């Protein structure tokens, strides 16, 4: 994506659900700041991030993967103000992109993941899993665009989104966007939004778990899929704990 000459607006597809005021507070320079990472043939990278604080925050990554390269990105997005993680990935032949993201929080803040995954060569795979847990009038978004060029045969691209709303005012949005020009392509995507399972909550209470502990355990189980592919146990615990700590502020 070329640099923006002016601040984004809601008419820009990738900023459709963004908190435009907060983006304005970030300023144009911050918005145009991309971190560029290139992986050579067969190289691997794993990045684990906890993002979000009391002010708007933006992380933009542009990844270019050579043949057979593998990039893994795992993010807990627990901002208390607008927090956006945007990733552009271009996949070489047989490369793999793994993304696991969690948005979690209440208040009024918008947290979002915006990914553009370009399958530029054959046989590349990508797998993206996002889990969003919100309360108050908090929002979580996952805008995931997948582009498969004409000769990128045997592409396998998967996206999976689940939202869990602890209160009626919260929202979770998934916007998958597919542009597929090759014909031998597997492209699975799913999106569901639901609430905590009441019968599970009662079952837990009947065994003596207090409401906070039951909620924490159920949310932990719900978030699990986002980080199953993260094999580093310490990082796994860091990202999960950061998410569950944010839950402390949720009403029951």
């Amino acid at each position, binding site marked *: 994506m070329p640099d923006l000459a002016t601040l984004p607006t809601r008419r820009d597809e990738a900023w459709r659900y963004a908190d435009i005021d907060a983006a304005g507070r970030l300023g144009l320079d911050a918005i145009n700041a991309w971190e560029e990472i290139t992986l050579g043939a067969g190289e691997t990278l794993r990045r684990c991030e906890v993002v979000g604080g009391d002010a708007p925050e933006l992380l933009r990554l542009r990844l270019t993967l050579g043949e057979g390269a593998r990039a893994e990105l795992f993010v807990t997005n627990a901002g208390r103000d607008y927090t956006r993680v945007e990733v552009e990935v271009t996949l070489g032949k047989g490369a793999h992109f793994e993304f696991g993201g969690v948005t979690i929080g209440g208040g009024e803040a918008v947290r979002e993941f915006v990914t553009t995954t370009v399958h530029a060569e054959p046989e590349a795979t990508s797998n993206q899993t996002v889990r969003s847990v919100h309360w108050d009038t908090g929002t979580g978004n996952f805008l995931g665009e997948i582009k498969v060029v004409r000769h990128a045969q045997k592409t396998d691209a998967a996206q999976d989104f689940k939202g869990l709303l602890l209160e009626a005012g919260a929202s979770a949005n998934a916007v998958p966007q597919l542009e597929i020009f090759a014909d031998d392509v597997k492209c699975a995507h799913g999106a569901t939004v639901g609430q905590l*399972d*009441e*019968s*599970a909550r*009662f*079952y*837990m*209470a*009947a*065994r*003596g*778990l*207090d*409401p906070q*502990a*039951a909620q924490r*355990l*159920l949310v*932990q*189980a*719900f978030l*699990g899929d986002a980080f199953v592919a993260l094999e580093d146990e310490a990082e796994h615990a860091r990202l999960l704990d950061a998410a569950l700590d944010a839950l402390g502020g949720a009403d029951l």
Partner: protein
Amino acid sequence: MLRIDNLHAVVDGPGGTKPILKGLSLEVAAGEVHAIMGPNGAGKSTLANVLCGKPGYEITGGSVTFRGEDLLELDPHERAASGLFLGFQYPVEIPGVSNVQFLREALNSQRKYRGEEPLSGGEFLKLAKDKAALLKMDMDMLKRQVNVGFSGGEKKRAEMVQMGILDPAFAVLDETDSGLDIDALRVVGEGINSIMRAPEKAVLLITHYQRLLDVVKPDRVSVLADGRIIQTGGPDLALRLEEEGYDAVMADA
């Protein structure tokens, strides 16, 4: 130990509220196994649910006293921590949570409520192993997600492992025998005896069949019909029900 006095409860249904318990009175003393039998839809599970504080019911009259306390004042998790255990007719699946994690947190949550020290991971695992062995359940099952992929009988057996670990003072067991094969029925029955047969404990055992009662010999048997206890007797009452059916026994009541 448990005293239910003239209890009335309604359930929130699609067509407004519907009375289910209609003046139910029952007393269970410490040291007693009290069997409850009764026709389908009589209100047995409703009684169990109301005792444990399941949402969706409204108590419209009566009282329940448990170990001298007003039970209905307590939240469900407080009832559990006070020593009440419900063996579910339909145990709930909790994907993504292992039995070990679930039960350890549940037990430590109860202990915290009672002002006791938490069990360490090692202490808990030893306890879990003992209780799984008592119910002849493979320890590997306890590492799996709560009830997920368990067969009907395995779920019931797992309920009893949970009971063993949590060691309640009072257990309400809702059709714990249904879904069990003949051998499992004996194992579960003996498990109930070994966990709950004690002078300071008691059991309310909801069942349709004599077979479990052959193993867990009840001290008293009550018939629940149309939201009330209509008859209470000794173990022979269950045998008579099995022989003659509810209609005949109820006609004599």
